[in-house]
């Protein structure tokens, strides 16, 4: 195997990045917020993969969770509420060489952003999407979200939520072209890391839902699961994640689940107690939109200008005395 000149020089000039090299501003999340665990896992993945900060992008919408790009020292785009995915898709289609991560909340993704979410699954672009699901709107100070459980009292539903919660994992698994779905809870850091890392390595749209504690507004909301490892169902498989012996000692409730099995994944996903964690589904054969739609050549400003002129010409009204063009078009 030979290396091209570029690869040789890049390898020669490569700098090692420590975790701190990926740490941006100091986080403003509440102490005890589960977002911290997700941030730490993402920084670890960047460090483990030695991603070049200048070739990595974190895109988000609006919400507490969507502040995450500020805390990364990479490129970032803190977007509009519900619009993280279209922005990320735009980046990816134009710059498929960049590693693009998306951080979105349950409100951001499953309420205002639902249309984008569903179609992003169908596009299957190579993005790593982490959905921080605290089952409440945190930034707007305790409002009911589509994933809030029925009867949850909040500022918007003081008499309790009327509707059953939407299950983002089952929903994702039902969409055309779904290619990677995983679930985790923020309080098992090893798994948060491994599951996101598996999603990062999957080529396609990796949807990772992380149940995330919001001690500020839903203090104790996940306590029954947090304090009882038996109520966590660990999905292990060589094509998914394999927990360490230390973790297996605590979380003994495990099953072998083959992520290729969509039907089984759908069955497992609908369970809330115990909470299934691990890779539910993975299919490497779904084509990525950016590959399917890859233009066979690159268009610079000059070519784009030309194409636009040609297009405008079709609508141009020619002066009556123009005798070059006999027939109208």
């Amino acid at each position, binding site marked *: 195997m030979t290396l*091209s*000149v*570029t690869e040789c020089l890049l390898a020669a000039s490569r700098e090692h990045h420590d975790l701190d090299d990926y740490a941006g501003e100091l986080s403003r999340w509440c*102490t005890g917020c589960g977002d911290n665990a997700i941030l730490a896992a993402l920084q*670890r993945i960047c460090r483990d993969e030695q991603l*070049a900060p200048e070739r990595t992008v974190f895109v988000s919408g609006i919400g507490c969770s969507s502040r995450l790009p500020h805390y990364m020292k990479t490129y970032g785009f803190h977007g509009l509420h519900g619009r993280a995915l279209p922005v990320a898709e735009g980046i990816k289609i134009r710059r498929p060489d960049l590693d693009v991560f998306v951080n979105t909340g349950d409100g951001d993704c499953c309420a205002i952003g639902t249309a984008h979410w569903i179609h992003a699954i169908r596009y299957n672009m190579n993005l790593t999407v982490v959905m921080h699901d605290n089952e409440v709107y945190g930034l707007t100070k305790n409002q009911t979200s589509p994933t809030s459980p029925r009867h949850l009292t909040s500022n918007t539903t003081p008499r309790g939520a009327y509707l059953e919660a939407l299950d983002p994992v089952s929903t994702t698994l039902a969409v055309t072209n779904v290619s990677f779905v995983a679930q985790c809870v*923020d309080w098992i850091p*090893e798994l948060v890391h491994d599951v996101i890392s598996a999603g990062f390595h999957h080529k396609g749209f990796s949807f990772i839902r992380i149940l995330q504690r919001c001690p500020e507004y839903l203090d104790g909301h996940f306590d029954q699961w947090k304090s009882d490892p038996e109520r966590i169902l660990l999905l292990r498989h060589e094509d998914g994640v394999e927990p360490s012996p230390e973790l297996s000692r605590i979380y003994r409730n495990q099953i072998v689940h083959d992520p290729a099995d969509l039907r089984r994944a759908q069955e497992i996903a609908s369970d809330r107690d115990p909470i299934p964690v691990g890779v539910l589904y993975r299919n490497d054969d779904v084509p990525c939109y950016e590959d399917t739609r890859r233009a066979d050549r690159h268009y610079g400003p000059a070519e784009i200008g030309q194409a636009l002129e040609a297009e405008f010409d079709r609508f141009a009204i020619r002066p009556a005395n123009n005798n070059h063009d006999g027939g109208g078009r």
Partner: protein
Amino acid sequence: MKADVDDLARFHLVGHRVETELPAATQLLPALLAPYRDLPALRYDYPLVLSDESPFVEPLADVTNRALQESAPRGRDGERLRQNVLRIEAEIRRRMADGRRGSLGELWDAVALRPQADGDGGDMPTLSLLGAASAAAGRLVDCDRDVAAEVVTHLWAATERATACATRRRIDELTLGLAGILRAHDARSDEGREPQHLRASLGGADRAAFDFDAWSEIMRSAATPPTISDGRRRRIRSALEVLRTQRFVPADDDDVDRAGAYPFLFRSCVAAAAAYRERMPAMVQLVKALAIAELELRNGYRESESDAYFDSFDESSLTADDLDGFPSYLVCLTDADLTADELAQVTRILGSDAPINVVVEVRDVLGEPGRRRPPNGRSPDAIIGRQLGRMAMGAGTAFVVQTATSHIPRMIDRIHAGVTAARPALFSVFTGSTDHVPGLAPYLVASAAVQSRAVPTFVFDPDAGSAWADRFELHPNPDVENGWPAGTVRFEDAEMQRHTEPAAFSIVDFAALDRRYARHFATAPPQTWHAGMQPADHLVDAALDTAELGRQVPYVMMATADGVVHRVVVDRELIRIAREYGETWRSLQELAGINNSHAIALVAAERTRWEQQVADREATRPVEAAPPATVPVDPGPAKAAAETAVPDTPVPAAPAPDEPYIETVRCTTCDECTDINPRMFAYDDNKQAYIADLSAGTYREMVEAAEACQVAIIHPGLPWDRAEHGLDDLIARAGALA
């Protein structure tokens, strides 16, 4: 006078140099070949369809088979459609044998749409009816003299189109990226913030609404961002210039004429090699510009190292990967073109790493009879044609395909592999199209050359591995394990008795086709047949005792056009020549691991040793001590993994209970403990908490942190400073946590 047995022996020993009564063997064909005389009536793998879609080259029969498979209904209707399609195919084949050429669509329509004389066949299907409309544009080629060059050129052009397209795209992207860097920096420079520059950057209608002076003022009040250094600007500019003016790929993928780009198709190796040399500096410049552009865009250009590296950048810096996107060269030759200069150049090319493909149409492998190989000067063409493939293999660096036109359809994927390989390649192809064999289709001549081992087909692919077993394929020769391929001749004699006789197809049969070799053959009338007559291939292979000479007369079986089989005797001279071909074939077999002499010797030596050991043991073994029969114990199948199994893996022991500790790997980075005392609690490389300094905090803080830790992974242990206040309460709280 009637010919007799002695005439046969005399002819064999001294050939036509003495008078015999034996008739010549003209108008005869080797008996094994005779059934194929009317070639166009057979369904075989010519003509080929050359199309623009993968696999680019395909036998017509494959195209129609596929179309039928996909579109023919089951049952009677399907069968009728099948018959009609096969009739069209046969008619196309016949017309091509008569010299018609064109696209598949043209020839198909000419046959399918002609008025039907007999109405029995029903409608003839068109290609679009068969769902094969896309194949219509493909060009039909028959097994002609030039088919090798046509096929290789076609595959090469398809490969080159794809490469050029990818390289074009890469150059476009880099050009755009570099220009983008310059533009971004220009916009941030002082000039970029001048009012007139800002004005130019805004679309027409909105201009009036802006005060560009004020805007410029605001812009300039901000700190000047670092602008691009002069060195970097120069570097980017010069890389851009090289990318814009390069001539290796056309500026536009649709530009079939490659306006402004270098040509890569040549008629001589001398010219191709000269062009390669001449373009080398430009190639070095382009690789350098591509690398600089890529480094710039990936933020990897370090002036401290890269400058020096690129200053001394030359031909020797190029790696195979760098040359990947560059076009390869193609030279089409015939063996007659191989002058001493040209041959020397071919050899140099094949020993180099230049991606130059050479196709040689070999028109003669046997050569003039009686010409010996001169030790110096120019070899007869035939010798070159015969040896080129093996010579090229010797260099070890080139991809080599040796075949005959008849076998091209079976080796298309190998030819394609050769064309795409990033190294020199030689395609030495015997054409079968020769004046020396009158009245026989070139396909059959080529095929006979392969059958008879005159042209063994093989592939040498240095990319396939480092061992001969990986690199060398002796395929698709018939009966590859044997000396000569075996067959059976069926015929009726004068009394209408049916006979079958085993017969091999050897180089002697191939020579029998060639009219230059006619004088080595003579027909043996039936009354001269006798027990001393031996199939020629036996004598070629046998190590003959001089005493046997003259008593054994070699013959081959040949048939007339109406199927009468004759025995044709062969002179000693031809048997000698035939042995040379036999040896060449055997050495190729050895390379392919068939009857390898080293392996055979090794096996023989091992066998002797083993036999010796057995004998020694027999001699020394005490008579009564028979060993007890031991049965090996089957360890049983591996334990199947249980679905819910949690593996029983050893886990490190927890620290002693009175020592405080944190289960760091379970820490969720929530900041609770570090907020309480950032010196006692700290984050490690993975941003997970551990006890950094016990002496920096109190037991109280430890217990409070443990209480605050939502995942309960802080274990306070027992107080380390007995003097601390309120320890009893704290110890009780700590105990409640456990």
